[in-house]
């Protein structure tokens, strides 16, 4: 279902809702296009006229700084007009339904909705109801998906490692609550990474995670052996209900990435984190700021990846 909604009759991207269901060629085309935009972002004039006259509405029903900002920068570098909606202060709090909000914005001639919502599936609902010339990009829905983060992770891995076909990738920490992990796992398996591992305490690994084609490890030291790429996840305290963890200190002791644990991975391993980081909870400062860390390049690549997605979608 997801795949039909995301692609038009010619197999081109129409909405970006989830990496799941996107064919390999579409993923590669997004990454290739992003590489061209990286060139643009390194110039003195960091703007191209592709989306001139188009209106991009940032609808963030859940707080976000980095993702909202990078979407805004990406849209502006494509010459689009960007409207940021402060949802907490908007009609939603007066009881307007999601579909009514979007219908009103549509009446204001919106072209592209970038949407983050705490409910899984909310962007799918919108994508079902928008007009043919309107497009939806999922900027994170509940625990379900965060496709542009997954794509920028894939871009970063490809940038440093070139090929996916011989990589061992470990995703560590709070996999249960992580839409980033889900998106990345789908992307890595579609692009042919032979070994994807998830590492975390049993309470933070989704049941049946192996069905996604990954190996799970409860022991971090065991799981990190021979890894080329380590993706640390943020401990999502705001999504935790009930006692899944004894304490943050306890978590750091077992699942925090320290220089000593990092030494178990391959010597040229890269360390990624989608941000925002909890230093001393999932990652040690010496690793976050160390030579293996590519956390800040991830942010920069994120702009080019979002430019690629928006320009490919707006054309379809």
């Amino acid at each position, binding site marked *: 279902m997801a795949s039909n909604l995301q692609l038009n009759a010619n197999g081109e991207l129409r909405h970006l809702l989830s990496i799941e269901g996107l064919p390999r060629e579409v993923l590669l085309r997004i990454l290739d*296009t992003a590489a*061209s935009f*990286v*060139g*643009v972002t390194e110039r003195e*004039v960091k703007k191209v*006229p*592709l989306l001139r006259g188009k209106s991009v509405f940032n609808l963030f029903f859940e707080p976000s700084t980095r993702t909202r900002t990078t979407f805004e920068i990406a849209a502006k570098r494509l010459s689009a007009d960007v409207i940021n909606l402060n949802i907490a202060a908007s009609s939603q709090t007066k009881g307007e339904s999601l579909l009514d909000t979007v219908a009103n914005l549509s009446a204001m001639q919106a072209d592209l909705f970038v949407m983050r919502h705490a409910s899984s599936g909310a962007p799918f609902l919108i994508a079902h109801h928008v007009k043919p010339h309107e497009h939806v990009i999922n900027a994170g829905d509940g625990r379900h998906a965060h496709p542009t983060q997954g794509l920028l992770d894939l871009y970063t891995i490809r940038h440093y490692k070139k090929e996916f076909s011989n990589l061992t990738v470990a995703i560590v920490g709070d996999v249960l609550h992580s839409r980033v992990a889900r998106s990345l796992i789908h992307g890595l398996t579609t692009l042919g990474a032979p070994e994807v591992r998830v590492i975390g305490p049993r309470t933070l690994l989704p049941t049946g995670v192996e069905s996604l084609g990954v190996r799970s490890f409860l022991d971090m030291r065991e799981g990190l052996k021979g890894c080329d790429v380590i993706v640390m996840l943020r401990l999502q305290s705001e999504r935790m209900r009930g006692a899944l963890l004894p304490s943050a200190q306890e978590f750091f002791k077992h699942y925090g990435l320290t220089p000593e644990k990092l030494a178990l991975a391959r010597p040229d391993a890269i360390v990624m984190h989608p941000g925002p980081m909890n230093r001393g909870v999932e990652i040690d400062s010496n690793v976050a700021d160390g030579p293996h860390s590519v956390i800040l390049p991830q942010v920069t690549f994120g702009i080019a990846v979002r430019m690629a997605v928006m*320009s490919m979608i707006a054309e379809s």
Partner: protein
Amino acid sequence: MIILPEAETLYARLAAELVSWVKPTSALIGIHTGGAWLAERLHAALGIGTELGTLDAAFYRDDYRQQGLAKEPKRSQVPFPVEGRDLLLVDDVLHTGRTVRAAMNELFDYGRPASISLAVLADRGGRELPICAQYCATRIELPAGKRLRLTRDAAGRLAFELEDGE
């Protein structure tokens, strides 16, 4: 039956014509993909000191709304400051002039060149914009709906090919 010109002969003619153009401030920019192949050869043949630049003006095209992005947009690389340079844009075929327009727009986002000239292997007419090539190895009449495309084989030899479609 349309007889296509010999691309290698045209290349030699263009290279000879360009010898007098070269100055210390000269720099070459090839337009992907055919123009970039030509520019690569010209760059070596003319002994240009500045590194070679390449452009894919896909992000500046005026037909984006109708056609979308090119299937594989190449990365533009202009590895020198364009400010004050005499630039030579190189493309394989000059037709409507829209690609050149897009390329010039892109170049100005890198800076303000002293001048831009255009060199092409073949001018097939059909201009839709006030653009002309200062250096052009041949003119050719082609029926509308045909696309003249430069190809390069494994040995690096250039040849023209006629395809259906604009």
